[in-house]
């Protein structure tokens, strides 16, 4: 196999894995808040979390540049302090995937957590378990199917993330060209047989990943 193809595969998996890990880590607490806390602006927060799904990824990418670019609202302070900018690095691909795929996990995990039987949560409390312990050992496991589905979808979405990544991470061969970017390049330049091959590879690879995730999640329930 072509070395650059190999690089793209590795990069894609790496970006998707890191983004998904971050999504799970940060998304679950948000989903928990949305599901079980009653605070002002809860539904507004929910909507805000969903918005990146509505925007064409390229637009999301553009706004991310405005925020995190070297001269962006946040990015400029980062740059002033550290001389480092996220633009055109693989971290940018992670950021883009993160933003674009996060809504999936949050919405799904919220729905699953809301469906957990109230009386089991109460039972946990009366047994002396703190809210955190109850969240981790009762709500999370009982919402597991939803959380797994959300994680799988986020991972898939991150694997396929393209538009926003393109904007933020650029397409630096051997640096930030994830599989979707590579596919796009191949297809766009009419190298269809290679493009098909790459699509097949991405599909297969994702398929295997999704299949394992499905199987595994089923077994541990």
């Amino acid at each position: 196999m072509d070395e650059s193809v190999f690089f793209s595969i590795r990069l894609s998996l790496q970006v998707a894995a890191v983004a998904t890990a971050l999504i799970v880590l940060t998304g679950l607490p948000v989903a928990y808040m949305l599901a079980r806390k009653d605070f002002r602006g809860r539904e507004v927060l929910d909507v805000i979390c969903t918005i990146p799904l509505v925007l064409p990824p390229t637009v999301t990418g553009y706004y991310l540049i405005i925020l995190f670019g070297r001269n962006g609202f946040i990015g400029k302070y980062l740059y002033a302090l550290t001389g480092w900018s996220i633009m055109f690095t693989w971290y940018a691909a992670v950021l883009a995937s993160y933003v674009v795929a996060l809504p999936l996990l949050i919405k799904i995990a919220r729905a699953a957590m809301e469906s957990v039987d109230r009386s089991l949560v109460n039972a946990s409390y009366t047994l002396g378990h703190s809210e955190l312990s109850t969240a981790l050992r009762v709500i999370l496991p009982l919402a597991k199917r939803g959380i797994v589905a959300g994680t799988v979808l986020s991972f898939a979405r991150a694997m396929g993330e393209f538009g926003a990544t393109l904007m933020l991470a650029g397409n630096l061969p051997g640096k930030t060209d994830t599989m979707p970017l590579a596919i796009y390049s191949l297809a766009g330049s009419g190298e269809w047989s290679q493009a098909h091959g790459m699509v097949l590879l991405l599909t297969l690879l994702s398929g295997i990943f999704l299949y394992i995730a499905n199987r595994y999640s089923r077994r541990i329930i």
Partner: protein
Amino acid sequence: MGLQVRLKKKLNGFSLDSDWETGNELTVLFGFSGAGKSMTLQLIAGLLEPDEGRVVLEGTVYYDSATGVDVPPQSRPFGYVFQDLALFPHMTVIGNIIYGAPAVPKHDKMDRARDMVRSFKLAGLEDRYPHEISGGQRQRVAFARALIRQPRALLLDEPFSALDHPLRLGMRQFLRELRTDFNIPVVLVTHDLSEALMLADTMIVYSHGRIMQKGAPDAVMNNPVNDEVKLLVGSSAPEL
């Protein structure tokens, strides 16, 4: 010291108003279906907030509407067996029981859990999930789970209703020993008069959210204050 309870709660047309206290003895809540017994336990455990009232155990105030004290359920030291059990479907029998002892040191946990399994005659079922055991077995798991952390008071909502007769006798005996060993207040909801007669130090008769009568079980049996109570305790012998 014991447990002092004063509770008022209106919910959807039903209104509960009860006020009683008990020492380190066994109190049976007896009454009509829908009279407010389970609700009383929920209010004591902090799962439902009273409109007004006070819950004090061993001098510690857990709820007081006057001073605004409201300790969350996870910090109240009651062992609660729910009427609908509420076992965790994703934990095995032993997992459920161990989950009941969050503050017990690791090495003790397993020992205690094994004791529980023995006391509640659950040997051989440790690794089953709740949906893989019988109704009576589930009830015993719920009891064991509530007991393992050695709570400072017990709230038992019909914990023996699904047990066969010999087992029920055994469990009653177990509960009596428990009470002398631990010396804590026990509140038991039951519809079984013989159970009430056998176990209760005090019997509190509920009807429509109010306390009709309170006293030693035979006093209640022999001198029901009104026709309602008479009806409730009237026919203890099997009739044909």
